[in-house]
């Protein structure tokens, strides 16, 4: 039995410990905000915070999260008002919206360590998160907005 904390709540899993964390979150813990996009850590749609660090939950085994704190988009802010979420809304970033949970989690992790990122730092941090609708110009703008305060 593996136990882990997700958004401050204790969860346990009695199955194969090599299960990707993504599927534990989505199908076992009932937290579908974290999205499946590729399963190979290529697109960033499944980004969550593991002990504060942005990780691809499709490439983290549930066993690797044992005893650690996982934060998903549902737990980023109790009222959905993290500065990155507010900035995303101020700039009207999303089109279809499917990748945005991963984008927001990645951006929040970036700003936690780099409060005023340069363009290059934004590109480096966000290059692992694909948006097929093509919201990149607004993602970049929203990150700057969040950095300077909404």
């Amino acid at each position, binding site marked *: 039995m593996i136990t882990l904390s997700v958004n401050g709540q204790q969860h346990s899993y009695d199955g194969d410990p090599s299960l990707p964390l993504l599927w534990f979150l989505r199908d076992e813990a009932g937290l*579908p905000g974290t999205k499946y996009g590729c399963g190979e850590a290529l697109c960033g749609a499944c980004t969550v915070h593991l002990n504060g660090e942005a990780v691809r939950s499709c490439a983290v085994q549930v066993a690797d999260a044992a005893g650690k704190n996982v934060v998903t988009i549902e737990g980023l802010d109790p009222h959905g008002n993290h500065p990155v979420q507010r900035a995303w809304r101020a700039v009207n970033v999303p089109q279809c919206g499917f990748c945005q949970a991963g984008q927001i989690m990645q951006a929040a992790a970036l700003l936690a360590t780099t409060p005023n990122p340069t363009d290059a730092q934004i590109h480096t941090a966000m290059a692992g998160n*694909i948006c097929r609708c093509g919201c*990149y110009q607004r993602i970049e703008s929203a990150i700057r907005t969040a950095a300077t305060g909404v």
Partner: protein
Amino acid sequence: MTHIEKNSLPLVENVSRRGLLKGVVASGSLIVATTYLPKRAMAAWATGAGLMPHGTVSDPHVFVAIAKDGTVTIVAHRSEMGTGSKTSLPMVVADEMGADWSRCRVVQAPGDEVKYGNQDTDGSRSLRHFVQPMRQCGAAARLMLEMAAAERWGVDVSSVEAVDHAVVHRDSGRRLGFGDLAEAAAALPTPAPDKIRLKDTNSFRYIGTGSVPIVDLFGITTGTATYGADIRLPGMKYAVIARPPVLGAKVKSFDGSAALKVPGVEKVVEVQGWDWPAKFQPVGGVAVIARNTGVAIKGRDALKITWTDSPHAVYNSDSYREMLLENARKPGKTVRNDGDIDGAMKAAAKTITAEYYIPQSAHAPMEPPAATAWVHDGMCEVWAPVQSPGGTHDDLMKTLGLPYDKVKVNVTLLGGAFGRKSKCDFVLEAALLSKTLNAPVRVQWTREDDIQHDFYHAVAVERIEAALDANNKVIGWRHRNAAPSLFSTFMPDPKMQQPLEYSMGQVDLPFAIENIRCEVCEAPAHSRIGWFRSVRNVPNTFATQSFVAELAHATGRDPKDMLLELIGAPRIVDPRKTTVDLWNYGDPFETYPIDTGRLRGVVELVAEKAGWGRDLPAGHGMGIAVQRSFLSYIATVVEVAVDGKGNISVPRVDTAVDCGFHVNPERITSQIEGAAIMGLGIAKHCEITYKNGVVQQSNFNDYQVVRIDEAPRVTNVYIVPAGWDTPSSGVGEPGTPPFAPALCNAIFAATGKRIRNLPIGDQLAI
């Protein structure tokens, strides 16, 4: 219109804000499903909406419900895949009825075209076909509220007016909120069309302002918006399916014993497949059922399956490309013939020929196909991200043998679609499995499934020859293409482009050239072919707009001047007489003619805004391209920077859009920004190749799409202002086609290297 006593929660919360539309009746529906929708009393223009299954409905009893607290619930019947129509169309209703948007909520309709009218969310049709019915719907609702208030006060209806969520009596200043009037208004029959009057367009509060954010914005940014794979039902099983690697192959035999040993795997079952062509029916395969999706994927890896042979195992992209080139070098079937092309070629002082190659590609929406189905007690209910809720409903009825009212298609948000989710094979798979397992089932496609079993954007060779006279005037234009047809998905393979396809950028050529011939050449299909954002406009525009710049170079002219010269004077170009079955995107040519004045307009506007001809840094170049597609006119200028190693970047994109009367400029801008990025992906990366009938790509490592670090730095969008007298056309698709030729024209300007084969890949590497 319906009066709601109390809001209750729907089973699936795919609504923007909580709420359920209960007991909405469809009395007095205005359903037109016969021919072109004629101008109604208050309609400004005729459309082809009536040619679509179940036409349009504009009855407020269907689309609007008002609660006693004044909350107005408006139904969005088109699917939301990122274009914003789920917000824009209800906003039209709200504005027209005088509602306060902050007191409106939007609910997504299930698939029910008998009730709501056509729901096929593709072809950039949502605004084009429904802006008028939705204005009529809102105006009818407003009149019903006004009638209810006038009756309450005992005054004439002409003396009252609905404004800001209330009806006001002008003389006395008396006022009744929409909530107070809900019950009485809902009891009224739908007013006759000749009684309904549209608002003055100057009095819109939301339309045209761009001030209304999408209704799902909060849900999307908090992870609470519901997509296709986000449904969990009690007792639900999780499934993934191994599908035949070659189109047309079937399961010969399989051994699921190793899969069943994977902890958490519950069952291994075969999924029925249909003989090809099978429209949107599943290709069949073997499903692994498990306690969660991750376990099912692991189980699938352990399956041993032997597949039958398929005639499509001959498909190899390298040899296929050579065959297309060979076929396009020979005369094909003539589908447009103006003047005497052979005479023009003989009389030419010079001829110029170019061949372009545009590869097969996959849609790859960020949300791979996924659907949940529950077949039980002679009923089927599904939850799925489908562009075609009505078509999905029909296909479920046929596949399961159920009557209309025993099938329910709940439409979730679509995590991108681009045409892929017009095809409901993944929903049918879930339904078939649910029936077999007698339990709710969610089918998840992996990214590999998505890339290897798509309904693809077809490969194409485009060959254009021009005849020039001694003064370098273009006197002849012959455009041949060889590309497999999407109709091979529906019928025995016609082995060449059909009217719907060649009318997207080949025969609708808007150039002032006396002798034009368009031909389509043989190209058998070996994969499932569908439609991808702007469809054949992608290869056709890449060829025609690249070729214009090639002609400019060959004759020593500026590419923009050359383009305007070929377009010629402002006029209506009507190729119908010289074309075999010109398809005008399903809409009447009289409403949406080919207007070179508007085409010139966007070229001139974008050239001015982009600073065409301005001084550029070393290694930079500008390119221009234009296309009328999906009845909108869009021109793009790309500025490219090519470094010493041949790496390209895009510092700036400018795009001018003329899409007629429009309601949400903010979402038009976002569509065009996104189209630039998708266009860059088409140009730079996207390619699906085959070896012995098997797709060689599998995920975003080998099927690359554009990431943030290579995206255009700035995309500027200029929307041509238009009043109600200019028919609306859509913007979901037409932003895409001009980008790749504009980019490649810019690369030529920067480097002198002409790209004729996509993707660019490493062709520029030094």
